[in-house]
């Protein structure tokens, strides 16, 4: 089973929730943690894995054999991302623009283009206790993260609870992280910003047809707008974590809330139970 943790707004507590969920689940079964927030992975700060493997993640880019090229311009015409330019004497490649679709090398009438590689980041993996841990690190300045996110997700283990920590937002990287999950947790905070972005995230997950539920983090007891939102969308509110100074203090030192308040483990056990009951049920589109 794959459970994705997303939020829309950044800083609502995705990693807090996903790491605690992993730690609690690992007490009973096999868990694989996949940190797909590859632009700023940080779950390792809480889970402290022992990393044993590293692998470069690469994408396909065109390589032009200039001596075979007839400068016909077919490659630049088919490139939807303007990664190729036909000059009077050669073809120029702007690799960072390339999405690796392969149109140019498949359609070049002169057979003058072959696929090469471009590294976009690194994948690292290891163990933290009983949890299998994988994360991606996108190169600084690199714009294209989905291929790295998909590479991390390929490490999901059959028969394990795979927890995907998604990046914030609702665009391609988040879609790449959440796609294919059996369930998606949407973590929000009781602020107008949290609610606004929760709605965006919910719309995105609904379009993907993934069943989802809401977690309110840093609840101050005034969660009515979130409750109202969940009620009208028929969206289950699965867990509420109270605003707690000790938890914040622990988090600031990389300590998960369930280590600060062992009693909170009960919340996460209930959350796990609720997820496994709902995963696989189709999400009702509005």
């Amino acid at each position, binding site marked *: 089973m794959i459970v994705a943790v997303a939020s829309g707004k950044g800083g609502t507590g995705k990693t807090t929730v996903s790491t605690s969920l992993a730690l609690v689940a690992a007490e009973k079964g096999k868990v694989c943690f996949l940190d797909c927030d590859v632009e700023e992975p940080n779950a390792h700060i809480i889970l402290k894995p022992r990393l044993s493997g590293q692998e470069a993640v690469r994408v396909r880019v065109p390589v032009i054999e200039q001596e075979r090229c007839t400068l016909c311009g077919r490659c*630049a015409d088919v490139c939807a*991302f*303007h*990664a190729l*330019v*036909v*000059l*009077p004497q*050669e073809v*120029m490649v*702007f690799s*960072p*623009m390339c*999405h690796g679709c392969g149109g140019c090398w498949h359609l070049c009438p002169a057979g003058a283009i072959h696929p090469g590689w471009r590294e976009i980041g690194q994948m690292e993996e290891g163990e933290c206790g009983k949890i299998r841990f994988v994360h991606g690190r996108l190169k600084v300045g690199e*714009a*294209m993260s989905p291929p790295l996110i998909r590479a991390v997700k390929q490490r999901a283990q059959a028969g394990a609870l795979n927890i995907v920590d998604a990046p914030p937002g609702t665009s391609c990287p988040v879609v790449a992280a959440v796609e294919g999950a059996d369930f998606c947790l949407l973590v929000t905070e009781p602020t107008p910003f949290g609610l606004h972005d929760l709605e965006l995230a919910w719309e995105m997950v609904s379009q993907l047809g993934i069943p989802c539920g809401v977690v309110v983090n840093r609840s101050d007891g005034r969660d009515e707008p979130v409750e109202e939102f969940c009620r009208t969308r028929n969206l289950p509110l699965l867990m509420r974590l109270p605003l707690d100074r000790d938890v914040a203090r622990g988090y600031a030192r990389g300590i998960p809330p369930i280590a600060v308040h062992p009693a909170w483990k009960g919340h996460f056990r209930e959350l796990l139970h609720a997820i496994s009951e709902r995963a696989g049920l189709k999400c009702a589109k509005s």
Partner: protein
Amino acid sequence: MKVAICAQGTHLDAPMDLRFGRCPYFVVADPQTGEWEHVPNPGPGAAGGAGIQAAQLMIKLKVDAVITGRLGPNAMEVLKKAGIKVYEGTVGTVRQNLEAYRQNRLPLLTQPNAPGGHKP
């Protein structure tokens, strides 16, 4: 001799557009004969690589020079390799900038003067 001027409209009296990749039109003129035509720029609709696409258009149109306000690094690299000169125009009409070019009053641009645009 052909010069492409970034334009907000389709004729000589349209205001010049300071953007290269995302200006809606190019007015392509012959400074000697005064003949001109307008060409729509495919760039404004592009998600990314607008400057590269516009530079490719310049090559296809076989222009000798471009008059623009700002140019990013990718477009500059393409135009340089294609041997197309870039001149920095100023706020005003296409006609005024063409006239300034004719009188050699526009500075030649050899380095990009804008950051790279929207990345994919």
